[in-house]
Every structure is written in C-alpha cells, then in structure tokens.
C-alpha cells in the first residue's frame, strides 16, 4: 500500500500555493515534479564532483565519469536492456527520435521505402518522418483510429508490406492516455522484417517496461517525465543496429582516431554522444530511478489507475463534459472538454483555482483534426497526486461549467 504522505513529503514543490490556493499539479504528462533526492544529486554533483567526463586522468574526472555512467547502468536495469552501451543519452525523446530518423535513414533507407506512423503521434514522432518523406522520398503511411480512439490494428496490418522498413508508434498516447497494443504491433512488423521504434515518453512513468519482453528495436523516452532531470533523454537501441548506424552528430568524444584523411568511431555508446553532455543529469537520473524502484512501478501504476478511474467517473457525472479516449486501456491521462467551450477557457479558470492542467492540441494536431476539435483539457497524474486533489479538480470543473455556460 502506497504511503501517500511519505511520497508527498519528498516533493518540496508540492507545498507551493498558486493564486493563494494549494497547488494541484495535474500536468505530469508535460513534466513531473522532482523528489528531494534528485535535486540533492544535482547539488551534490556541482558541489563535490564537477569535472568533464571520459577524458581526464585526474581523480575528479573519474568521479564525474563514474557518477554519469551510474545513470546509464540504472537506466539499463530499469528498462531491461541487455547492455549498458545500448543506452544512448540524448537531450530528450525528441532528440532520441531525431537521432534514429537521421542515422537509421542514412544507413538503411532509400527512396520508395516505407515508414508507418499513427494518427495519434506526438509531433516529435511525426515530423522527423514527414521530413524524411519530403527529403528522401520515403513513403509515409498513417495508421488511423477507431471510433473509440484506439489504433485500428486491422488497418495497420494492411499498411504493412515488404517495403516497410520502420514502424514508429507511441506506446501510450500523450493526449488521450490510450495504451497501444505494442507487442502485437511489433510481432506484425517482424513478419515483414521491419524495425519498430516505440515512443515511450508517456509509458515509462506509468508502467513496467522491459526491452527483452517487448523486443522493440528502438525505444525513446525522457527522464524529466519520470521524476528525473530535464535535458536527459534515453534512446535504447539494439546493439547490432547501433553498430551499423553512422554517428548522428560529429564532434568531441565520438572517435578512436582522427586524421585529415579519415576517422574511426569510438565504441558504443560514445559514438552517439558528441560533445560534453548534461553530466549532472547522470547522477540525478540514478536518483530518480532509485525513487521509482523504492516505491515500485507496479504500485505507482495501481495508484494512478485508481485516480484515473475515480476522476473519470466523477467527470462523466458532469453532463456538460465530454471525455476523449474512451477505451478501457489507459494510463495516467484524462483528456476532456466542457461541451461547446474552448479548452483555453476551462484551463484559465482552473488555473485561478490553483489547478495546473494542460490545454491545447498537445503537439498532436493530426489527432485534433481527426477528433474535429481545436484542443482538449488534459489532466495527467503522478504518484504524488491524491483523491482529494481529484475532488478539488472536479469542484473546479463544476465551477468552470457554471461560469462559462
């Protein structure tokens, strides 16, 4: 059983007030708050360990390198990767996906090859592929949604062909919270020898994710959505793919040797990590994963599911609201509108009541076009949210209904 008070005590920001009211933070899909130990890890790094990594013979450089690499090992164990060098550190999910679009395409794609994405993708898992279509003559196919806003798997099967090289889909929709049947998606893709990239940005914070069980070829997520630091993204990729792909960025740290004539690349993961990285995010990442492991991702998922079920029931009882993503299989997100009201209006009034939600298209404009709306109000949950906060949110929505209609 989750000790919610003990959890909340670890997040100093949760005692803040907004517009004179206690903060209710329901914008966790955008970024989660940080527990004290993550904040401490960053302070500790700059107080005691700061040095550049991977190149110094001196003690401090070794300390910094060790601290950074502990972050990598923590991620490897957390997502069940076979090797630590299959974990590439990036700026974030967007950077991870752009790395694949750039390096994978240069190694493996030619004009006429096909990539499949879905209609519910975040722009960061759509624009890199749309750009490849325009620049490289790749054929881009899009999996449509069903009436309940699930991926249309039958339609997906028909999109696959011998020309499919990559399927790039999200594991959990950032806008709707819908959990996609990624194991089935991967199994179908493999029948055609296609590689699969999963956008795990909204999955990793809410469920157990295991690379061996999933068998995805690429997996991208951001630590800042998992109680960790900003500027720390993860790209997991299978070793043989990373070996075959050229570097994404060229610069310091990625080489074995350089002459005027030619260069030889460093071993993994360094080949893909040009320049000085966000070093303090290494130890902070480890601290975040320790935090999650201490509670247990299953316990976190269960708690968030209870909040989601409770909030959905309460929201459904308000006749003036409409919920998007009406499937049973959802994680941590509830997307809705007050009927005939712009999401911006609802969000503005909730903000006055100290309730932080996201409004707008959530970087999923193709999905908004599909639903025929300008945007939604999105409440997204984390381990530290409470039933009482959901009550405050529901009271807020009722008040907004009264004021706006």
């Amino acid at each position, binding site marked *: 059983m989750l000790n919610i008070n003990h959890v909340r005590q670890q997040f100093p920001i949760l005692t803040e007030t907004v*517009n004179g009211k206690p903060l209710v933070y329901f914008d966790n899909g955008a970024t989660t708050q940080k527990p004290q130990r993550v904040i401490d890890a960053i302070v500790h790094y700059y107080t005691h360990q700061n040095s550049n990594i991977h190149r110094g013979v001196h003690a401090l450089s070794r300390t910094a390198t060790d601290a950074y690499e502990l972050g990598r090992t923590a991620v490897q164990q957390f997502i069940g990767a076979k090797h630590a060098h299959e974990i590439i550190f990036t700026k974030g999910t967007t950077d991870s996906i752009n790395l694949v679009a750039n390096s994978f395409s240069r190694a493996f794609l030619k004009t006429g090859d096909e990539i499949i994405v879905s209609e519910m993708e975040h722009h960061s898992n759509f624009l890199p592929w749309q750009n490849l279509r325009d620049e490289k003559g790749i054929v881009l196919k899009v999996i449509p949604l069903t009436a309940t806003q699930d991926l249309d798997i039958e339609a997906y099967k028909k999109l696959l062909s011998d020309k499919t090289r990559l399927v790039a889909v999200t594991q959990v929709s950032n806008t709707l919270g819908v959990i996609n049947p990624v194991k089935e998606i991967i199994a179908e893709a493999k029948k055609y020898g296609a590689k699969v990239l999963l956008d795990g940005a909204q999955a990793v914070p809410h469920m157990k994710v295991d690379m061996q069980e999933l068998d995805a070829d690429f997996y991208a997520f951001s630590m800042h959505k998992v109680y960790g630091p900003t500027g720390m993204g993860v790209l997991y990729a299978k070793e043989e793919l990373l070996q075959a792909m050229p570097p994404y960025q060229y610069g310091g740290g990625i080489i074995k040797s350089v002459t005027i004539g030619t260069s030889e690349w460093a071993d993994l993961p360094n080949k893909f990590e040009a320049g000085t990285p966000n070093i303090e995010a290494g130890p902070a990442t480890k601290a975040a994963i320790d935090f999650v492991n201490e509670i247990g991702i299953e316990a976190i998922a269960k708690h968030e599911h209870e909040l989601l079920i409770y909030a959905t029931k309460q929201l459904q009882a308000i006749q003036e609201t409409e919920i998007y993503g009406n499937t049973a299989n959802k994680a941590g997100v509830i997307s809705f509108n007050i009927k005939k*009201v*712009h999401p*911006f*209006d609802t969000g*503005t*009034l909730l903000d006055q009541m100290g309730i932080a939600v996201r409004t707008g298209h959530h970087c999923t404009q193709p999905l908004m076009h599909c639903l025929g709306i*300008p945007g939604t109000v999105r409440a997204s949950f984390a381990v530290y949210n409470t039933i009482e906060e959901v009550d405050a949110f529901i009271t807020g929505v009722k008040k907004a209904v009264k004021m*706006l209609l």
Partner: protein
Amino acid sequence: MFDNWEDKYQYVIDMGKDLHALPEELKTDDRLIKGCQSRVWLQSDLKDGKVIYSADSDAIITKGLVALMIRVLSGQAPDDIMTADMHFVDRIGLKEHLSPTRANGLLSMIKQMKLDAVALKTKLSS
C-alpha cells in the same frame, strides 16, 4: 475593482458573451491575430475619421478581453489609439494577461489594434 477572481472573470466572460459575433465570412486567416492559443479575428474599419473595431474568438475569455479593448478603443481617432495608454488593464486586475508569456495574447491584440489604426490613418491622409 473586483473583490475576487470569480467576479473579475465572470465580468470578462459576460463581456465576451455580449460582444456581437463576427459574420462567418469575416473569420478569415488574414484577420487572425498571431500569438493567441485561441483564435481571434479582428476587423478594423474607418468611419468619419474614427476607427471602428469588431472582433470574435472561439474562446470566451479571450473574446471578453478583446471586447474590453474594443470598448476602450473603438470610435476613437487613429492618433489617439496609437498613443493610448493601456495600463488600465493593470489597474482593473488583469495584469497577468499582459505578460508576453500568456497564451491568450492580449498584448498581441493591443499591438494589432494599434497597427490597424496606423494603417487606417495612412489611408485617411492619402
């Protein structure tokens, strides 16, 4: 001016509801004000040397804010609009909406209204 946020926002919402809607054919992309999360259309006309504004938005609070601006600026001479001091927004407790980081784009609205006044003045003197 207002005792609490509810009264303040109810006033803005009611202003929005009372503002005449723009005819659909005027809700065109060239009338959209950039920099707003919701869509705001602004139409500016010159009548007897005065600028007459009409506007619409798909968000009611935004529409209320633009209605407030219209109430203050519409019917004035271009020169007066160009030099108008908009700090009354601050005084009536809507200062937070003047920040450039606010998505509703009240600042963008004021800027566009002043730009239109400049354009109409040029037309007047030519």
